[in-house]
């Protein structure tokens, strides 16, 4: 395997910039550049010179001896001064040794996976951890990165194997002294697995929202003050406001952090019947986005008729323009009632987030859904017609689907997908 290197920190001016070198030649490259390396697991200040002996920088140098490193290979880290010119010069010097090439996107993590330092779920967790902006995102990614999903799947797998073993016993040891009727235990094992997977699947939908942000649509009649409210929430003028009804045509978004959760507020066109073709497009779009959103907040005004499509789908409702009515509710203009609204939203979202278990991605969910389908078919057969060899077949397929969640099988297919999506560790 080639030795690779890459800048592990963001490119640009910074206090420190870290170049990571990983692979069989990492030690040789480090020695060529720095003269000598610190002992494995230790750090030391060294002078980096290029081939004509001119000094490039004086970085802090770390050496990790494989397999005790992030990638499982020998790794050298150069903690350089964060200058664009220094970084470029050192990269050139590494290339000049002829011993390493630049790492591809995600290549360090890929090596960590190939060397069994991380499993597939952990890689996904790591990807999310790097991307995490809010506290909830961090906690969620950290759980997966630390291997919680792998543990969970391992437990489900053990129970599935137990069910498969019971079915097998009645097939392969039919003429021996095995329990005659294993179906009650198989049923209870399968029911348990299905129920655990089902709540994992439900949780994973919410987990995706935690990662990508919850969408909250602000709805109401034209001129109810939705855009003013959005601007107040965002703390800046992102939506045009005016007294003219129907000012907002497009959907305008503002991203916020509410108690550690990423939230995107959507300002939408006021809902009314209109002859104006452009405004009508805006209203249709508003409805679509509102229906797809995680939460719908209505700014209620007198005489406003909620469209049928939204009937029963409004999560929170406040009287609009409380500054004018003085009768409670919210006002974007004065900020009145905003704290109440935020804390209401926060409470609802906190409830939802409590559903999050360990699975976080659509890929993980896909594997679990396939597994549930197989286990359900097995369960139906055990309860019904009782063709034990076919039930066993479904349990086996379910187990394979579970394995794919943490990446035990299908490695060739999954690898490409994962590493094209996650640009990690570079």
């Amino acid at each position: 395997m080639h030795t690779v290197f890459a800048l592990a920190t963001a490119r640009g001016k910074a206090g420190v910039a870290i170049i990571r070198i990983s692979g069989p030649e990492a030690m040789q490259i480090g020695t060529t550049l720095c003269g000598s390396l610190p002992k494995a697991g230790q750090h030391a200040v060294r002078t980096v010179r290029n081939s004509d002996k001119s000094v490039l920088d004086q970085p802090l140098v770390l050496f990790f001896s494989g397999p005790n490193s992030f990638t499982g290979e020998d790794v050298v880290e150069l903690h350089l001064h964060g200058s664009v010119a220094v970084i470029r010069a050192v990269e050139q010097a590494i290339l000049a040794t002829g011993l390493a090439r630049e790492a591809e996107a995600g290549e360090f993590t890929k090596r960590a996976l190939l060397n069994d330092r991380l499993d597939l779920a952990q890689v996904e967790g790591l990807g999310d951890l790097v991307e995490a902006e809010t506290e909830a995102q961090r906690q969620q990614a950290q759980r997966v990165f630390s291997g919680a999903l792998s543990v969970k799947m391992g437990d489900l797998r053990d129970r599935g194997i137990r069910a498969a073993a019971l079915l097998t016993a009645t097939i392969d040891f039919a003429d021996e002294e095995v329990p005659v009727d294993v179906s009650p235990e198989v049923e209870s094992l399968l029911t348990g697995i299905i129920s655990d997977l089902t709540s994992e699947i439900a949780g994973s939908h919410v987990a995706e929202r935690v990662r990508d942000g919850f969408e909250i649509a602000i709805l109401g009649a034209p001129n109810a003050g939705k855009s003013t409210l959005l601007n107040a929430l965002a703390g800046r003028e992102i939506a045009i406001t005016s007294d003219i009804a129907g000012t907002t045509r497009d959907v305008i978004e503002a991203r916020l952090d509410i108690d550690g959760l990423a939230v995107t507020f959507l300002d939408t066109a006021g809902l009314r019947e209109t002859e104006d073709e452009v405004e009508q497009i805006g209203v249709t779009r508003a409805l679509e986005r509102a229906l797809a959103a995680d939460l719908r907040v209505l700014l209620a005004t007198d005489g406003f008729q909620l469209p049928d499509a939204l009937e029963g789908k409004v999560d929170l409702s406040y009287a609009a323009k409380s500054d004018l009515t003085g009768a409670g509710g919210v006002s974007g203009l004065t900020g009145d009632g905003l704290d109440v609204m935020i804390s209401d939203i926060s409470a609802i979202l906190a409830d939802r987030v409590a559903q999050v278990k360990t699975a976080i991605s659509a890929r993980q969910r896909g594997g679990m859904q396939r597994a549930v389908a197989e286990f359900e078919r097995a369960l139906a057969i055990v309860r019904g017609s009782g063709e034990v060899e076919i039930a066993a077949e479904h349990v086996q397929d379910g187990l394979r689907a579970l394995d794919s969640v943490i990446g035990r099988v299908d490695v060739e297919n999954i690898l490409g997908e994962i590493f094209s999506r996650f640009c990690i560790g570079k």
Partner: protein
Amino acid sequence: MKHPDFDVVVVGGGHAGVEAADAARRVGARTALVTLRKSDLGVMSCNPAIGGLGKGHLVREIDALGGVMGRAADASGIQYRLLNRRKGAAVQGPRTQSDRALYAKAIQDHVGQAEGLTVIEAEVADLIVDQGNVAGVVLADESELSARAVVLTTGTFLRGVIHIGDRKIEGGRMGDRPSVKLAQRMDSLSLPLGRLKTGTPPRLKSQSINWDILQEQKADEDPTFFSFLTKRVQARQVACGITHTNTRTHDVIQANLSRSAMYGGMIEGVGPRYCPSIEDKVVRFSDKDSHQIFLEPEGLTSDLVYPNGISTSLPEDVQHDYVHSIVGLENADIQQPGYAIEYDYVDPTCLSDQLELRALSGLFLAGQINGTTGYEEAAAQGLVAGLSAALKTLERDPITFSRRESYIGVMIDDLVTRGVAEPYRMFTSRAEYRLSLRADNADARLTPLGLSLGLVDEARERIFTEKMDRLDRGRTMLEAMTATPKQAAEAGITVNADGKRRTGMEYLAFPELHVADLAKIEPQLDALDAEVADQLKIEATYATYVARQQKDAEALDRDEAKQIPNDFPYAEVIGLSNELRSKLTRIQPATLGQAGRIDGMTPAALALILTKLRQLDRISA
């Protein structure tokens, strides 16, 4: 160069040896079978029964390839029972109690008439090795038989020791002498060896058993045969008796455990978990106060009974005491005490897919010497080893039996890829393509291969072709006929009224529907005979699953197609754990698929090997 005496010499006349010799001569190799006594051919040294779950599949496959075992089993079957009769066809296992004498006679008659096969009564003392190749065998009288390949099927002869309580007898089987020089020759190859044990029960005199008070287990009314050629029962059918151990039996055993060879520390070999001795049963399942015993007659004319379920290595006096504590056996005479046998086996991971030793070209191993147990497992390996040895000497391409196509393939792959930790026995659950690899379709799966290799004779070919034609006609009829649920309802068939037009085969997939029901829609189907109707019903039952497995199998094929060269540099693959590296180096998987089945293999390690393979391809391209 001197023309060798034979192409293939098979050493040992047990089930593996007979099948090996017959397969070799069928494909046209001049073959010799060397056995201590001609009367040893076809002897059942243990339980007088053939078949069972997984094992019955193997016998059917041997038969589909023109082998001997199925026909001999049918010639001697005295109590046919289809195991799992009430479960699906994929997991049914034909089994029969055999008359020992009739079985041996069937084998000896066959071998005696087999063209191109010479039986030599002698003891093989050593191998002739010439420039790293096996070149024949040396007999005990120091004469030599030269050959291009040798198949060793010598069972438990490697350091075989028999234990009856604290008595120890050197030897492979009661009454046989161990071949010391041959064992030394095997030692000189520095093969990895392991130690196993197996047990037998005391043999009882039938007349001394009180049959009147015992429960009976009768033979099936409509027997399921082993050979695709067999049409009717050939021997009188008898019943087995059933009795049970009781707390008194267990007390006797508990009190004398220290005198058991297995529990007294005299045996170090590993025994099979699925066939425990009565000592094991009493100790490990101490909460059970009764275990079932089948009293199996050894033959129609024999006075011996094999009490299946109480194998032991306790001393003779204890065997008497515990046998007499059992209902119906109060006055039973023990004709021969039970004993345990301990022996060395060659770790089969040092064999190729053809069961050839990688350490010594031209030497093939089959049967118990590879760590397996059971006549059927031995015979199936014998067929593979004999066939492969013959193909090699005839300079024809080697054949690899695939996991997808046969239980034989599953077993060979398990042995050479994963090795054994206990005596290896076939189970249906070892076959991941269980729903397609059925006993009922062994002929459709394997006879064409047998034909192409020259393993199958013309008589069988005619019967096979005729049967396949009948099946094809029936299948075509069922695929051509279609009916809507409404039309079906008019014929008295109720299915989900989804308006979906289904073919006859699709209707047949419903558990409760049979060809006879469909004949009410399509009267032509009445013309199908019962064999075809049953077979097509089974096909329809598993059709969707077989199609699914087919897709899985295609993925497997991709991995199987990625060959790993013999000199693959595992040492250069960075990131492989030392444990996996040494396993891979030892086992030398032939393909990426095989590497994936090695115990402890991870996808990550596979990806590393794949990366290296691609790198090597690039270099050579």
